[in-house]
């Protein structure tokens, strides 16, 4: 089965095409991404949606070309149903619906957060991992327990990437600021005092952004502030992941989301995993960030388990929760 997946939850419009190789292994045939970069400020949902509508056709063509596939060779269409920005999600869903109707192929909507986990299971050796999902909009610790994917810890305010981007924006760095903060942090060495907020299994980041700005205003070196921001915020999410590992008894940790591209965060999580005797997994970067291949792969799993989304009810769900997902493809596993 060859599945085409459309991702459009936030700034990225992505089209991926995948097949199943060995049982349970994802083979990525194409993974095209087009990112909306705001001229100034943060993402405006309608402006981002306009971007997605503009690039949709050419991204689809590029994905088919990359996969050396014709549209008629696609067996099914998957799309990101949520959670995400309403206008962006609707643009992706419309493209998916149109394609499914035109080709006469089945359609299936999938959960974006769960797709980050499934692409890790499909492309690394992770079997039943705890996912540390860190991105702009999301920061969650997710694992499969008692018949469902469940959230064991999450941010109480903004996503960790959002906190980094916002700080970077205030310092005049263009979007996305996370990679620039990472580069600057390599030149830092002094640990400055910033709030470290872990509440039980949850984290919070809005205070750390404000405090970091105050440090810059006070005249601290930007490199040292970036260094301290990363050390503090990343340690907090790593601690939450560690608590969740202890609580769930899982033996594998998987990273996902755009912030997982950060080498310092990856090192912290790997160090924590090794100290606990857990296996560490991180998919390649093009599969960590928002992408269509992960949507396609989750769609393939869902379709193989008999799930379909009828065209007439192929809506989006901005607040689609991880624990609402009917993960039928995992029945009988753990």
């Amino acid at each position, binding site marked *: 089965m060859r599945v085409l997946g459309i991702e459009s939850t936030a700034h990225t419009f992505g089209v991926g095409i995948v097949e199943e190789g060995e049982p349970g292994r994802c083979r990525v045939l194409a993974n095209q991404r087009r990112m909306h970069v705001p001229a100034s400020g943060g993402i405006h949902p309608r402006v981002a949606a306009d971007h997605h509508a503009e690039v949709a056709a050419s991204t689809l063509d590029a994905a088919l070309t990359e996969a050396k596939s014709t549209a008629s060779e696609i067996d099914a269409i998957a799309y990101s149903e949520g959670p995400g920005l309403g206008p962006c999600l609707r643009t992706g869903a419309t493209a998916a619906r149109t394609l499914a109707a035109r080709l006469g192929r089945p359609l299936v909507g999938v959960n974006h957060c769960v797709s980050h986990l499934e692409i890790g299971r499909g492309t690394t050796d992770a079997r039943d991992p705890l996912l540390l999902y860190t991105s702009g909009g999301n920061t969650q610790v997710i694992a499969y*327990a008692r018949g469902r994917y469940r959230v*064991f*810890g999450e941010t109480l305010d903004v996503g960790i990437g959002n906190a980094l981007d916002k700080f970077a924006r205030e310092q005049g760095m263009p979007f996305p600021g996370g990679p620039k903060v990472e580069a600057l942090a390599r030149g830092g060495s002094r*640990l400055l005092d910033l709030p470290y907020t872990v509440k*039980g299994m949850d984290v919070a980041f809005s205070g750390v952004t404000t405090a970091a700005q105050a440090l810059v205003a006070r005249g601290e070196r930007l490199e040292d502030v970036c260094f301290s921001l990363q050390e503090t915020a990343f340690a907090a999410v790593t601690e939450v992941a560690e*608590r969740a590992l202890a609580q769930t008894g899982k033996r594998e940790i998987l990273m996902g989301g755009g912030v997982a591209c950060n080498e310092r965060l990856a090192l912290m999580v790997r160090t*924590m995993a090794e100290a606990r005797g857990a296996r560490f997994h991180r998919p390649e970067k093009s599969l960590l960030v928002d992408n269509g291949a992960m949507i396609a792969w989750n769609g393939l799993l869902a379709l193989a388990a008999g799930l379909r989304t009828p065209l007439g009810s192929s809506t989006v769900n901005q607040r689609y929760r991880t624990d609402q997902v009917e993960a039928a493809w995992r029945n009988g596993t753990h």
Partner: protein
Amino acid sequence: MAQRDALIFLGAEAEVTRSAYLGLESVRKRRVPKTYRHKELDDRIRRERTRAESQLLVEANAAGVPVPRVLDVDESTATIELQAIEGEPLRVVLERGAANALALCRRFGQIVARLHGAGLVHGDLTTSNVLVSGPGLVLVDFGLAQRSADVEDRGVDLHLVERTFESTHPERPEFHGEFLAGYRASLPESAMVLARTQEIKERGRYT
């Protein structure tokens, strides 16, 4: 350092070992260094949490909540020396089908009400963190405790109790019923907390 064989429990954050303090049997809780964290940050966090936990235990004790006595605190090694409590977790006693099970659950509710009434919340209120010791109960592990009279924090405490009863004793709803009866009878503003617990439950988070 306590010896390896004296290890009682190894959590995400701390190791708990059997020890001795001035000839008394004690329990030593040490927050172990985390190598993934920057050393200065790690030292600061472990020191602050050790201080907070010991202070909250002292406050709880002063308010008449049965908790282990704090014998000694060493912030530099993030270690708290506690009075050893003879007894078993409430969970184990309930699983065994103890004859006084309902009375113990009611007592558990009274103790939590007293803790909340003293302006404290526990943060990890499971039946594994209540020990049945002699005729009474002792509340342990204040690692996630906070000073708070916030209805949300109290509601989170009760929500965790409810989930714990549901997962360990699904066939005995009266355990949780007795717990609530004890809580209601001992905290004047309990109705507000119970309403919030219901709301938290409907949000459907699973921690």
